[in-house]
């Protein structure tokens, strides 16, 4: 890597408690994760001069965590593009650091959707704005929208339910190697296909978990990287985009905006899909993974079903994917993106024990938000 690439590095990462955290609150999860991530980076709250957050109970997430931790930032960003937000935040942090606007960026997330039973498939009542044309049909949110994409992918490319199931099975194998994963018992392709329908063609085991959880990521300016207790994980490239909000307006149901965010991230890094040693992508549903692999160029359009077949993405396979067990089996508090950054960082540091991908030097984290609406991609590497 050239010196020019050493603009910003991930210096600390942490998860909060995961699973069912009652009676903890989402802001408590964020604060606890932030403290741990900063400790890992050899820093304190007083060092933080930029805050990034999304979700939670308030309208401006970065204000909430700033108040709670007593941090007055000189750069602040509560951008909420759904589950992709935190990966986008990492790119924004890079840019803010490159522009000299801050030196220590803290990204946080927390959710108690499981213990609060706050997840619902729809809300009913009066529906306003653009959603007045979608929100009246009983499409379960968000799974129904992903089901529409899956049906279309199957129609256009001949993708089969058992190919979607391959992803769920492989991801569960990774989860079995992660003691913090919520679901660790092995499953088979038949188990996925025999699990009950949620919204055809997606079965229960094609869907992510509903858990509590949170996390934090600390990104520091390159000049500080020499002082870090941990191996710096450099941000080499980033990108973001969105193409729609509601699924009716998605330009092509089989093409996610990761086409654009991935091209930007790879272009900036001067790298391509073949350079990625370990890949962490948002897996809200099995179809999300297939569409994302195509969008990022790991395989051709329509080829993702074949690409993941034969447990290629499982431990020991030649394409290590979602090595923490993913949103499908490890944790999914509603906005999963931050966990792709956390796991990519740990893999490059070589901290992952039984699930460690040997010799991983370059990783990709990709977030997806809304109903395949937004995407953010970060390519990271170590010296």
């Amino acid at each position: 890597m050239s010196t020019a690439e050493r603009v910003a590095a991930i210096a600390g990462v942490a998860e909060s408690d995961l699973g069912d955290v009652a009676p903890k609150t989402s802001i408590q999860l964020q604060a606890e994760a932030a403290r741990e991530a900063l400790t890992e980076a050899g820093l304190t709250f007083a060092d933080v001069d930029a805050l990034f957050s999304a979700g939670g109970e308030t309208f401006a997430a970065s204000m909430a965590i700033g108040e709670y931790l007593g941090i007055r930032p000189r750069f602040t960003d509560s951008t909420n593009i759904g589950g992709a937000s935190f990966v986008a935040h990492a790119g924004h942090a890079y840019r803010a650091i490159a522009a000299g606007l801050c030196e220590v960026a803290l990204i946080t997330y927390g959710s108690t959707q499981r213990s609060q039973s706050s997840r619902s498939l729809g809300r009913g009542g009066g529906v306003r704005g653009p959603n007045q044309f979608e929100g009246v049909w009983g499409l379960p949110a968000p799974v129904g929208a992903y089901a529409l994409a899956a049906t279309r992918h199957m129609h256009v490319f001949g993708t089969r339910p058992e190919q979607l199931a391959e992803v769920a099975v492989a991801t569960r194998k990774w989860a079995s190697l992660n003691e913090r994963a919520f679901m660790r018992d092995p499953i088979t392709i038949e188990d996925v296909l025999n699990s009950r329908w949620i919204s055809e063609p997606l079965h229960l085991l094609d869907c992510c978990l509903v858990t509590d959880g949170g996390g934090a990521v600390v990104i520091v300016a390159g000049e500080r990287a020499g002082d870090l207790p941990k191996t710096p994980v450099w941000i080499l490239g980033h990108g973001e985009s969105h193409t729609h909000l509601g699924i009716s307006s998605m330009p092509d149901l089989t093409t996610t905006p990761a086409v654009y965010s991935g091209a930007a991230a790879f272009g900036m890094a001067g790298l391509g899909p073949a350079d990625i040693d370990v890949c962490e992508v948002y897996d809200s549903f099995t179809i999300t993974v297939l569409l994302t692999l195509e969008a990022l160029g790991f395989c051709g359009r329509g080829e993702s079903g074949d690409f993941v077949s034969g447990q290629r993405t499982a431990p020991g396979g030649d394409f290590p994917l979602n090595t923490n067990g993913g949103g499908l089996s490890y944790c999914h508090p509603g906005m999963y993106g931050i966990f792709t950054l956390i796991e990519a960082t740990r893999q490059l540091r070589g901290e992952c024990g039984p699930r460690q991908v040997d010799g991983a030097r370059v990783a990709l984290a990709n977030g997806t938000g809304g109903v395949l609406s937004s995407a953010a991609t970060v390519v990271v590497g170590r010296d």
Partner: protein
Amino acid sequence: MTERAFPVPDAVSKPFWEGIAEGVLRIQRCQGCGRHVFYPRAVCPHCATVDFSWVEASGNGRVHSYTVVHRAPAEYRDEIPYVVALIELDEGVRMMTRLVDVEPADVRVDLRVEVAIQGDPRLPYFRPVPEGEG
């Protein structure tokens, strides 16, 4: 139990819902670029024109994609399984709907459908076009 969802018309969408109340599917056509636009907008996303005419759509289209819903929001649970679909109207715009008068197992992508305005709230459902028509 949650109240069943209903649309709340606004200044731009009012002609659409008035059409539905009359049993007519009306959509916008941009006076600048001539393209049909859905959902209704104050500004054309293709050419930024603010002038639209409301035209009666053919009401015909095809299933672009669909899902059979088995795990429904609370207010729809007594109706499962039902089919929510994205329809590509012959005018070239896409809209979400629920399919009626068809068994879920008989639905296919590209199935020809026609509008069937009904229900409470009154909404533009779609149903298969009978064989030999459409």
